[in-house]
């Protein structure tokens, strides 16, 4: 696929738009696995937004691979495998007011999710958490979809001081289902503090990204599950 856009959103976080010859995205929360020059393993990155011809990823520079991606210019060809994984299931019985919670670079797949939830006629509320105000991403984009977006920052420089559950409490958000993507401590807190069933996108170091190497397996109540092929999204009740 061809890079159509590669712009910096905030420090160390970039938005890349890719076009040309990809299989259709079947659910929000799926990811792509990108081959990079002089790297052996592909880099798995979740899909933020898509249409028939393109999709957009938002990624953080966390090592040599993503650093290399951040320097790639428009027009560069990339070997992209995917979309992979099962993504979020939005066909949930009796769901009217889903809560969508994200942290850091866990927020991007929730943008596509929120869009799809709105298309289905649901009324989602979005809560996103970051370390500090300068790291906040996709706030305007989410708000532009016409949903309520609450922000928390650890240092209080933006939104509610604290973590996402603090923002949830402050805003008195009512919900009948939840979706989540973020760091492990956030997932643990949500598992504890949510009263409803929900879906959680998990992250693990991956080998292949399509289920063959079983490198990213987690233990769930339903046995060993591969984050890449059986996930990345799992039910709260099975984790």
């Amino acid at each position, binding site marked *: 696929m061809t890079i159509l856009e590669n712009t910096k959103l905030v420090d160390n976080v970039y938005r890349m738009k890719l076009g040309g010859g990809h299989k259709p995205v079947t659910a929000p929360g799926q990811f792509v696995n990108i*081959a990079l020059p002089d790297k052996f*393993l592909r880099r798995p990155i979740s899909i933020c937004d898509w249409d028939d011809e393109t999709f957009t990823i938002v990624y953080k520079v966390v090592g040599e691979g993503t650093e290399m991606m951040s320097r790639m210019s428009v027009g560069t060809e990339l070997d992209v495998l995917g979309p992979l994984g099962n993504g979020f299931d939005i066909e949930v019985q009796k769901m009217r007011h889903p809560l969508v919670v994200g942290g850091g670079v866990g927020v991007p797949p929730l943008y596509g999710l929120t869009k799809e939830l709105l298309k289905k006629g649901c009324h989602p509320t979005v809560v996103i958490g970051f370390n500090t105000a300068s790291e906040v991403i996709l706030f305007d984009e989410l708000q532009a979809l016409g949903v309520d977006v609450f922000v928390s920052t650890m240092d209080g420089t933006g939104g509610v001081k604290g973590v996402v559950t603090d923002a949830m409490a402050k805003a008195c958000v009512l919900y009948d289902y939840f979706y989540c993507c973020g760091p492990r401590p956030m997932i643990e807190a949500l598992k504890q503090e949510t009263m409803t069933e929900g879906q959680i996108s998990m992250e693990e170091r*991956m080998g*292949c990204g*399509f289920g*063959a*190497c079983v490198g990213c*397996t987690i233990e769930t109540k339903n046995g060993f599950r591969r984050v890449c092929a059986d996930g990345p999204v799992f039910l709260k009740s099975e984790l």
Partner: protein
Amino acid sequence: MKVNLCGLELDNPVIPASGTFGFGVEHSQFYDINCLGSLSFKGTTREARYGNPTPRIAECGGYGMINAVGLQNPGIDAVCEKQMKVLSHFYKKPVIANISGFSIDEYRECCAKIDRQEQVGIIEVNISCPNVHNGGMAFGTDPKAAAEVTKAVKEVTTKPVVMKLSPNVTDIVSIAKACEEAGADGLCLINTVLGMRIDIRRRKPVIANRYGGYSGAGIFPLALRMVNQVANACHVPVIGCGGVSRAEDVIEMMMAGATAVEIGAANLVNPMVCKEIIDRLPSLMKELGIEHLKDIIGIVNK
């Protein structure tokens, strides 16, 4: 492209290596896997195993990766009842059953069970997994122990037995010879090379289990040398494995003495790689003036 491996006629010498191809289901999304010479399925033990804690995968630059999966598998009974049935749906030719264990008894029991599976053409006995303690590699680093496992499994099966050897030894030839003398019908080498990566920012090993098996193109020259040494010293067929990622590597492995070739880590980054190699082989053979692949086996030793 046909080769004869331990009495089994293969359409071509290309075999996905155990642990990089599951039971064939995942790669079947990408192509019809019936083009493969055979396939070696995920290493199976007596009991179901989760394996090692994550992270258990590490990047190693352009040349390879480390894995410390540690033999995650559903256990021999589930494999016989479930995975083999699913596999037979996607793949119609004889397969190679990869068996591992933590004791001689476990190897024997698993091999006896897999022996009853009609689709199993060869049993590949893994005595070289670097990611488990008190098992796997422990049997593959000592000639006496390797011979004991070989003898034990030969007693319980009439199918050809191929011993999968570890490169993490001082003298792989002595292990290979011990297996051959104990009745092995073939040898497969090499398994992964014990390696390590450190996250210099966190000042900690990348792999939760600290060490893991290094594989990928980077180990090809090492694997090739060992295949050549073993093929020179032993009479039974050798399956060459380690870093093979192109049709050229297949030819090179066979010239070094391999009768068939296993492809491992490459399957994980390019799911189409085995098919691409099989498709490329005829034209490459033509370029190199090779009429039959079997004619080049060990040609550098002649």
